[in-house]
């Protein structure tokens, strides 16, 4: 038992942090927001120069063969800058294929995902009918769905790899509140799907990776919201003193830190439990997703409040954090749903 980062993990975290602080600037992110919500140069840099997109993928498929703790460090650093990247699609699709795909499917797609040459999105839907390899149905709220060349789509009956270019695939992009992760509707009309060997394992792995990814993003975003507000509290003067000297103000900052420290425990507990496949993994995942998302929403909301009027402007970055936080709260099961899963574990099913 040693709940601290190894030297290698610390190095990955610091490298990623430096990379995103330098490159995922407000200007570049806003430019991506005005198009499809992906900063292509950033994506190429992340996948190729940094070479970390495949951190959880085995080396034989071009990855680094590390674990969810290392991936969480990356997602945390990207989330801290609200980087406009298809991170959650990468996490979910690669883990789905890794957990449920055949060797051929893994060999065909994982190197492409890891190199960044194929952008992926992943979604589930109850509304799918399957006839042989032919799929008909609708998948809603697919993150970066309009930019993806590859979909991993699933339901209770299985999971499939569907290429965007396939006949019968239609994608509708939506104007989305969080412009760094626009949502799309993917409609299949007798579209060909390449069935994954173990659909249940694939979808489970996708969910787990997605939860860890957005929880880590939320942790990074919450910490950054606090850090930027702390900087503002030191420089902004009213009534002849730095506003951070007012107890009403600094106690709110303290409350942010109290939540963030718990979110940090939650995210790395979940990531570590995933790597160790420990028996408390489900509890850890539900705790991490719900707690980190709520922490981020609180901190981003406080960031606006504690900046006053400037925090409500389009020009200031506070709304980027605020909107990303809200999106994370809603996606992949909201907080009440995750807590109900925890309640079911300890109290049995609801009536």
């Amino acid at each position, binding site marked *: *038992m040693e709940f601290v980062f190894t030297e290698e993990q610390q190095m990955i975290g610091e490298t990623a942090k430096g990379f995103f602080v330098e490159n995922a600037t407000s200007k570049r992110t806003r430019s991506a927001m005005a198009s499809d919500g992906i900063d292509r140069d950033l994506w190429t840099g992340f996948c190729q120069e940094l070479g970390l997109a495949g951190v959880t993928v085995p080396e034989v498929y071009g990855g680094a063969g590390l674990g969810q703790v290392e991936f969480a460090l990356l997602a945390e650093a990207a989330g801290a800058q609200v980087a406009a990247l298809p991170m959650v699609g990468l996490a979910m699709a690669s883990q789905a294929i890794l957990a449920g795909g055949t060797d051929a499917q893994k060999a065909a797609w994982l190197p492409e995902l890891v190199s960044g040459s194929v952008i992926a999105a992943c979604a589930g839907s109850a509304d799918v009918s399957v006839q042989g390899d032919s799929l008909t149905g609708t998948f809603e709220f697919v993150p970066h769905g309009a930019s993806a060349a590859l979909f991993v789509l699933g339901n209770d009956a299985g999971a499939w790899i569907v290429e965007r270019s396939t006949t019968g695939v239609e994608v509708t992009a939506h104007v989305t509140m969080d412009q760094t992760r626009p949502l799309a509707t993917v409609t299949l009309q007798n579209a060909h799907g390449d069935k994954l060997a173990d659909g249940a394992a694939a979808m489970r792995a996708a969910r787990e990776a997605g939860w860890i990814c957005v929880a880590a993003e939320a942790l990074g975003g919450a910490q950054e919201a606090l850090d930027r507000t702390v900087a503002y*509290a030191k420089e902004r003067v009213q009534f002849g*003193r730095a506003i951070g000297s007012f107890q009403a103000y600094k*106690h709110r900052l*303290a409350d942010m830190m109290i939540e963030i420290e718990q979110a940090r425990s939650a995210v790395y507990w979940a990531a570590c439990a995933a790597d160790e496949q420990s028996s408390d993994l489900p509890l850890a995942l539900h705790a991490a997703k719900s707690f980190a998302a709520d922490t981020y929403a609180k901190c981003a909301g406080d960031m606006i409040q504690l900046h006053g009027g400037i925090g409500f402007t389009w020009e200031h970055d506070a709304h980027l954090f605020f909107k990303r936080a809200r999106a994370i709260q809603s996606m992949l099961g909201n907080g*009440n749903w995750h*807590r109900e899963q925890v309640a079911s574990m300890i*109290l049995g099913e609801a009536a």
Partner: protein
Amino acid sequence: MKLGFSAAEEEFRRECADWLNGQMAGEFKDIKGITTLTEKAERRKEWEQQLAAHKWSCIGWPEAWGGRNATLAQQVIFAEEYARAGVPGRVNHIGVELAGPTLLAFGTDEQKKRFLPGIAAGQTIFCQGFSEPGAGSDLASVRTKARLEGDEWVVNGQKIWTSLAHISDWIFVVSRSEEGSKGPKGLTFLMMEIDQPGIEIRPIKQINGDAEFNETFFTDAKCPADSLIGAVGEGWKIAMGLLAFERGVSTLGQQMGFRNELDDIIAAAKATGAAKDPLIRQRIAKAEIGLQLMRYGAMRMLSNTDHSKIDGAALTYKIQWASWRRGLGELAMDIIGQAGEVAEGDAYEWSMLPNLFLYSRSDTIYGGTNQIQRNLIAERGLGMPREPRGDV
């Protein structure tokens, strides 16, 4: 980063559990499950000695002083199994977790020889004399005076909230040794024997009817000149060093006590049907998540060996657990309803959950109120300007 325990550690867990369960089923059956700190005090002193006889009284201490030099993981395991077995809290918590480590860090060899064997053996029970009526949140404003007269310190003044002073043998006292000094300067840290004419102890009855805390009066109380830890005037440094030990491994044992409380609440929710209420389910889930995050926060804090930076997990830990537990008390009463407002017997004594509801109001006060914690977090953790000092 690694969370699992090794096979050897799991074996150690079985050894702890076997011994503790054996004791709680056998010779010390009568103290199993006691949740207050004051009940059956004499038997619990015997329990301290039983722990010592089997080398379980201070496993984190060096072997030379009666400990086992236990690893962090072993200490975690022992603390968890201790509470899981329903063993009541340690009446010598302050001796083992605070006085001992303070002596090990700052004491002379002679002082270590004088005090550590007694603490390790469960023979010397310690209490803490820090707070005063005029020095609560502002601890550095203590007024209790100590003056050196010949080969003795003579102490006059009053301490308050001295937990378990009425069953303790020794008290450590932060006192003002430099006439006219203010704040953290001019303080000295003394070890004093309680059984003497100059020290008087009066219990303070709390809102739950129990009396764990006391007022302690010093009227020309005496201790030998060499009873000070550190140098004259270094009392604040020693006191702050001691408080840092408070966030040690014992927090994990404390958490297992919380686990027992939450388990009782879960059982009550099932029994009353509240477990079907979606709002109660959400609150129980939140409580469960909060407790787990406390555990992993403590693991982070204990695993951290880089003390060059502020440890956020450690800095926020007190307010986190205190607020969580206060919320737990409220949840308990919402679940058990009016049944929780009626005592079981004729005395004003409360079973675990109603007592939790009342007692937890102190958690957010003692050891630094939630408001003081927020000041500390904002100032030390986030670099915000310090609160101005008045001169009243």
